[in-house]
């Protein structure tokens, strides 16, 4: 980022390649809309670019990056809350949203029968819905913790809370997930 600050456009390209996928995934899990997630991710990079001259490396770059992304995502979720309420959480998952998964399933279908495919689909749908039902801040904490593998200190800075509050937040989120995913958790335990 310091190279970007110095005007090195190539470094910005490197940042883009390195963080585009984590950012898009995080935002996609947050807003549950691929197009919107990509728009937000573009906005994140744009803000990074705009702020390059004033960037001060007081924290890890990822912390700063995901803090921007989280704020954008939380704002977006709050802005579209009423709009999203009109869409049933139980509505079938669109092809667009699960494009990546479909590719995986296409390969898997070669080895699995349709019944297995439906079971897998149901499991994923349950997991997605369980995450989706989490309050926004808990959802962000879980996503940053589980998928971005950021440490507690970083996540706490991103969410602008103490580490202790973050641990409590994560505990409540996992408790909710444990209840929501109880059937799958039981299966997981048996296996």
């Amino acid at each position, binding site marked *: 980022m310091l190279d970007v600050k110095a005007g090195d456009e190539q470094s910005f390209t490197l940042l883009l390649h390195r963080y585009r996928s984590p950012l898009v995934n995080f935002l996609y899990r947050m807003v549950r809309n691929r197009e919107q997630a990509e728009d937000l991710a573009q906005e994140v990079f744009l803000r990074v670019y705009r702020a390059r001259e004033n960037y001060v490396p007081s924290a890890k770059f990822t912390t700063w990056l995901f803090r921007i992304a989280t704020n954008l995502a939380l704002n977006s979720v709050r802005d579209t809350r009423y709009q999203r309420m009109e869409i049933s959480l139980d509505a079938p998952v669109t092809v667009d949203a699960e494009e*990546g998964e479909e590719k995986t399933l296409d390969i898997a279908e070669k080895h699995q029968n349709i019944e297995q495919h439906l079971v897998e689909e149901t499991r994923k749908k349950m997991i997605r819905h369980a995450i989706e039902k989490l309050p926004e801040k808990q959802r962000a904490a879980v996503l940053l913790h589980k998928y971005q593998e950021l440490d507690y200190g970083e996540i706490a800075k991103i969410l602008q809370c103490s580490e202790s509050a973050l641990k409590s937040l994560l505990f409540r989120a*996992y408790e909710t997930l444990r209840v929501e995913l109880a059937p799958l958790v039981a299966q997981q335990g048996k296996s």
Partner: protein
Amino acid sequence: MGREGEVMSCSRMENKILGYVDGRLRENERLEVEKHLAGCAACCLRVNEFRAVSGLLEELPMIEPTAAFDLRVRARVAAEPVKQSWWAWLIPAPRVTIAALVLMLATIWVGTASKNQPQIAQEDIPVLENYDVLSNFEPLTELPQPVQADDGGQQQSPQMSGEMKLRLQFGGGLLALGLSAAMALPSAAQSHNNRPPQQQRQPHAPRQTNRPPQQPGGRPQNKPPKNDGPHHNATPNRPSPYQQTESMGMIGGDRPQNLAGESRRQPNFNPNRPPKADNRLRNFSPEERQKLQQAERRFGQLPPQQQQEMRERARVWAKLTPEQQNHIRNDVLPAWKQLPPARRNAIKSRLNVLQNMPESARNQHLSDANFTRGMSEEDKALLRDLSHMHVGAPDSAGE
């Protein structure tokens, strides 16, 4: 769930359990948790369930950004201005910018029309331009008024101050340009061209001897702004180059009342001015400006009543034909200056008597020895000369 006496309570486990599942605890913390878990089946179960939840979350596949993602980011970055300057707002709206610039130029033009001049009141310029004549030739206001002619109105087109008209034309043009640039409406420009051309360039017929006091039919078409009074600035037979564009000279030609207010709107007094009368102040040479300023100083020192008289003289002066003006300036004034006050007053008083007389009565008076009693032959000749000098009419030779 929790048990008293344990190394760590179940409530404390809440903050450690996830770190333990993820393997993020420090060694001493991990040992502490494991000690608790060894004696707490509930927490042990929760740990296992959290592990299961964590495993389930891993089942969700990752998605990849679309191929256009990078392009879009680069496009948005490229669209970012390198350095936003304060005038960058001009770029998105060039049409508005042009309109604003045109209007700004018009404003500057109007402003500079007075700023480029010496600090002289516009309405007094006609006085100051001819200050020497006006201050020394008192009988100007005693000169006979022109006799009205029946056909005067037919020959006189509606007139307006050339300077005022040019200013209106130019200002209107700028305004139309601004509007058309802003709105892209050709009609906006047309409105400028809709001015009656015959009033702007109508050639004048040969001068008329007499004029009606007012041309009410001509004024509404070319009424200049702020002008609610008569105009006397041009005579119909004035051969000055701008005469053809001036067409208000006959209006109010014989209305000496309200002269003070009217003179302020009569910047067109000098018959020798160039056609672009509105620029004459800007075109003054430094010497001329200095002269004007000197005259202004002298004029400013006069009492208001005398200033008013000077303005009235200026108004009469403006109605004189160039020949009459030259005659006064070159022939009459030098002689007038030589006269003692008593003789001047004698001539003035008689001129005043003759001023509104019919021609025959005037000649009769001039021939009457009683009327000119006590006057020298030189004074009588001067009186005769002046008494036949009808304001704005042809020279007295014809009379």
